Every structure is written in C-alpha cells, then in structure tokens.
C-alpha cells in the first residue's frame, strides 16, 4: 500500500492546475517588473505565485511516492534512465526555487507602501530571483509534461 495512491489522479490534476497558475503569475510578475519596478500589482502577482507554488510543491510531494514506485522504479529506471535524470533535476530545482519564491513575496511587500516614483531598494534581487524561478518553472513544466507522455501515475 503506497500512501495517497488511491486518490493520486486527483492530486496530480490539482498539481497541474497549480503549476499553470505558477507560470501565469510568474510571467505577469516579470512583465510588471520589467515595465515598472514601482507597480503595486507586482505584490499581487508575487502573492499569487507564493500560494500557487506552495500548493504545487505540496501536491507534488504527495504524488511523489506513487510516482516513485509505479512509474520510476517499475518503468523509467529500466527503460528510460535518462528520463529519471530529468525528473531528479526537476525535483531538486523545485526545492531550490521554494525559498526564492518566498523571498520574492517578501521583497515585493514594500511596493504597497511606497510612492509611485520610489523603486524598492532590492529590485535587482527581486528581478533576478524572479527570472531564475521562471526558468525553473518552465523547465519543470516541460519535463513534467514530457514524462507524462512516457507514463503517468
């Protein structure tokens, strides 16, 4: 008996929905940041990204045991070991991007209380972390989709 296996398809679907929300929020965040670093909607997108990322990370953690046994151990490790490598990069990248997502949220909070012409002091860190998180999200979405075409939970 693998934990959460009985409703893994529902969890996987919600994982997919949260991932799309993450991508949309991050694209909006970067567009707002590059157009104007004093746009208060940056905070809205950062908050949406944080909530969606926490959801996608938690749901992915719940789906992972079933994937590890039914997909990876029974199929990928034997037939497509390079696909296992892609998945491992995806999972580690997801962990490495979690604290930057929290950081993006915290760094965007001062935008709520600043005047229109005053950019936050740490906007280079905010923009840099946002671009790297976007790269991780695009990579993870592509790998997640591709692995699903090989075999899913």
């Amino acid at each position, binding site marked *: 008996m693998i934990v959460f296996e009985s409703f893994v398809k529902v969890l996987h679907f919600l994982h997919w929905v949260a991932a799309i929300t993450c991508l949309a929020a991050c694209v909006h965040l970067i567009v707002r940041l590059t157009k104007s670093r004093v746009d208060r909607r940056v905070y809205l997108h950062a908050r949406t990204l944080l909530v969606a990322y926490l959801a996608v990370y938690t749901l992915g953690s719940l789906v992972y045991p079933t994937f590890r046994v039914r997909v990876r151990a029974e199929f990928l490790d034997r037939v497509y070991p390079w696909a296992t*490598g*892609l998945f*491992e*990069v995806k999972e580690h990248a997801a962990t*490495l991007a979690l604290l930057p997502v929290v950081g993006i949220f915290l760094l965007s*909070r001062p935008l709520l209380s600043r005047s229109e012409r005053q950019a936050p002091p740490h906007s*280079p*860190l905010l923009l*840099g*972390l946002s671009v790297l998180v976007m790269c991780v999200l695009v990579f993870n979405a592509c790998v997640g989709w591709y692995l699903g075409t090989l075999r899913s939970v």
Partner: protein
Amino acid sequence: MRAEDRVGIAVCAAVVTACVVHVMAPSAPIYYPLDPAWRWEKVPGGVAMHWYGRSAWSLASGVLAFGLAHFAAGLVRRDPPRWLPRALAALGVGSLALALAFVAQHEWSVWMTR
C-alpha cells in the same frame, strides 16, 4: 538599518544557505514508500526516496539563516552601503544558478549516461 534592507539581507542569506546545504547533501532520513517507513540507513535493493530528507534539511537551514540574518542586520545601526542591493542580487542569484547547474550536472553524470 531599514526594514527593507534587513529583509533583503535575510532573503539572500536564506537562499545562499539553502543552496549550499542542498548541494552538500548531509545525511538525512530516507523514506521507503513500499514499507512505508523512514530510516536513516540505506537498505540495499529497496525503493528509497532521499528527496524528502534532503529538501527538509535545505529548507530548514534556509529558514534558520533567514531568522539569524534578519536579527543580526537589526543590530546594525548605520545605513547600508549603496552597493549592497547589487551585491545581494549577485550573491543570491549567483548561488541559486550555481546550485541548479550543479544539480543538473550531477544528475546528468548519474542517469543520462546509463
């Protein structure tokens, strides 16, 4: 020091610490989904999941570094230097990029060449 600078320093410290700990991969509990059980030692031939323990260490160390850096920055009374935001951006983004590159290179050498 302003609250914004304290948060910037703390975020940078958290990201750098989490990246270093994740790359170092210290000993962590391993989850065995078929048992299901957590064990510290590796069982030969078992389906093992190292990711939970490794992620827990790196995230916990990052949160701890955030708290310590936020507290320490609060003790500084003078204003931060003008180059601080760019230095924090270079350090935070650079360490994250390096950690991602290390993970990709490591997994490539382990799995892609089989």
